[in-house]
């Protein structure tokens, strides 16, 4: 923050030195903003671009699932059971009940994207809210919050989601809630730390002195300044949520049959590892690519948004 302010001062001085003679105008090129600079860096980061393309692809497939899938994902064609890939009309083959693999994967993309966005949405909403308030006001509220966060972090992540689902009952909705809750601590910590660093900053004090309310200061001034690390965390969080929900469904604690959820598809394929490799393989590859997309983009974002890594 400080260096940025200094830069601005220097810019002012420089412009003052170069004040055009009266009557003439001078074009001073604008310094690129942080946002413009980031977009520029993003274009040069191949991994991030690749990740973005993959994410866009899965999102598009998910949104337009009913239009792009060749079959109904739940339709069972008994005489076509366990057809291998490249069977006429069934590009990726069919599963043990004669359902089209490709269509199930496509609808699985829709489900996984929803899971990712909803879980991370839950985590961010509560995480940001709690983190900002906790960091801003401090005191007993902050103490209690930090204790609870410590307790949540005392559970390994997978175990925490399983424990929460065990309380709520096994369903896809509850899996999303469980994953969301398990991801709350990271946002609380992130935001709280940023708020602690920012709340005595000059711009906050200045705004307070001209009568900005606590609410405006917390959510209008301070929070937008921590958005860079939050967006990195959120991107990586979506990938993690997709993986966790697949794991929960695999254990029978998430989506229930006949939902075409990827983890559930892998679980029900277990008995076919000797007879039908495609039923086992494809849902895993779909999961891998979707998660990889978010991880690539998240990693790229981190490189771009972390000023320390910038040359």
């Amino acid at each position, binding site marked *: 923050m400080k260096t940025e302010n200094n830069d601005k001062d220097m810019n002012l001085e420089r412009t003052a030195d170069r004040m055009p003679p009266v009557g003439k105008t001078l074009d001073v090129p604008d310094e690129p903003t942080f946002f413009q600079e980031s977009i520029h860096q993003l274009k040069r980061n191949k991994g991030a671009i690749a990740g973005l393309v993959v994410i866009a692809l899965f999102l598009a497939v998910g949104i337009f699932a009913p239009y792009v899938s060749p079959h109904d994902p739940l339709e069972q064609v008994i005489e076509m059971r366990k057809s291998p890939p490249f069977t006429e009309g069934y590009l990726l083959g069919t599963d043990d009940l004669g359902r089209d693999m490709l269509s199930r994967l496509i609808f699985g993309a829709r489900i996984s994207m929803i899971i990712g966005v909803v879980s991370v949405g839950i985590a961010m909403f509560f995480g940001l809210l709690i983190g900002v308030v906790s960091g801003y006001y401090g005191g007993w509220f902050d103490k209690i919050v930090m204790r609870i966060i*410590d307790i949540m972090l005392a*559970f*390994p992540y997978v175990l925490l989601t399983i424990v929460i689902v*065990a309380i709520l009952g096994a369903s896809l909705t509850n899996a999303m809630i469980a994953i969301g809750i398990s991801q709350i601590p990271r946002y609380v910590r992130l935001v709280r730390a940023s708020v602690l660093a920012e709340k005595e900053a000059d711009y906050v004090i200045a705004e307070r002195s001209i009568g900005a309310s606590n609410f405006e200061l917390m959510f209008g001034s301070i929070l937008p300044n921590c958005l860079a690390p939050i967006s990195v965390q959120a991107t990586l969080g979506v990938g993690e949520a997709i*993986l966790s929900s697949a794991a929960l469904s695999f254990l029978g*604690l998430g989506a229930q049959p006949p939902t075409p959820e990827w983890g559930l598809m*892998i679980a029900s394929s277990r008995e076919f590892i000797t007879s039908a490799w495609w039923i*086992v393989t494809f849902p895993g590859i779909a*999961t891998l690519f979707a998660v990889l997309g978010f991880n690539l983009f998240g990693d790229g974002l981190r490189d771009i948004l972390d000023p320390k890594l910038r040359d």
Partner: protein
Amino acid sequence: MGNRGHAVSVSFVQRDNGLQMLKYLLKRLSLLIPTLIGVATLVFAMVALSPGDPARVMLGERATKAQLEKIRAEMGLDRPLIEQYGIYMKNMVQLDFGESIKTGRKVMDEIKELYPATIELAFFAMLFATIVGIIIGVLSATRRNTWIDYTSMVGALVGVSLPVFWLALVLIMIFSVGFDLLPTGGRINIRYYFEPMTNFYVIDSIIYLFREGDPKFLTSVLRHIILPAIALGTIPLAIIARVTRSSMLEVLKQDYIKTARSAGILENRVVYRYALKNALLPVITIIGIQFGLLLSGAILTETIFAWPGIGKWLYKAIEARDYPAVQGGVMVIATTFVLINLVVDILYSLVNPKIRLQ
């Protein structure tokens, strides 16, 4: 010469502060107790809040009301919640988790029997991940921006994006079903007459080897552990490789490395003697944290490989709503996790004095 930075920090520790170290230790330890109480409370709440009735689970659907009442009274479920909580906490302190509803055995006894299997699996997974991860990390750091670096880093990214349970199935499909090289599950060939002593089968089978001179137990045990260890170790492997690489790159930039190079010391010696030693510091932290995480990751791996450890057992307990077993299992894993993290933090603060001053 290469150790100058290190030497400075050591003298700093000696001069400044046994006292500060002690303060830090006490602070960390004092946080441990409330955390564990919180964990125990959450585990209690988990059962108190969850739908379903333990008495019903025990007696089945056809139990009469009178039978249910009786068993509830026996289990103390008819008492007010706060009293139940008090009794529960008292038992917790004595490490008494009660009896499993399903088997009727003491939960603690079952855990004692099963935990070694999980620890053994986690140990071999971590061994695999650490060795391969560090090698890959060092190779890609020293050959930065070559195809080795690119392939390893893409591989590492794939590694953290994989659904582990799927990888496990694919490994079984290829190595057990396809090539018939390795067994699909279990800890040892079930036809062998094998009496475990420590329940760490590798140790047990080595004892057998020395006592009876027959290596078949050891071979069987090792063959059984390969696939689950690879499946479980993949994520930590990828993470260790990435951390090693970035830490190594950081160290290789430093002055003492430049000095060593300019003094004409062989590049290999610079890398492995001087750089790697300091670069491994953050890696050690990661290894500790990942080891803790593995214990819960084992739930998936053990289920697939029919590995008779605490993960598979806990999963079965959750499925059967065997509440005392679930409480015990979750409590033990969470406590182990907390303790490992504590040890990692303390070790790290020993080598890095800056942490203590915060």
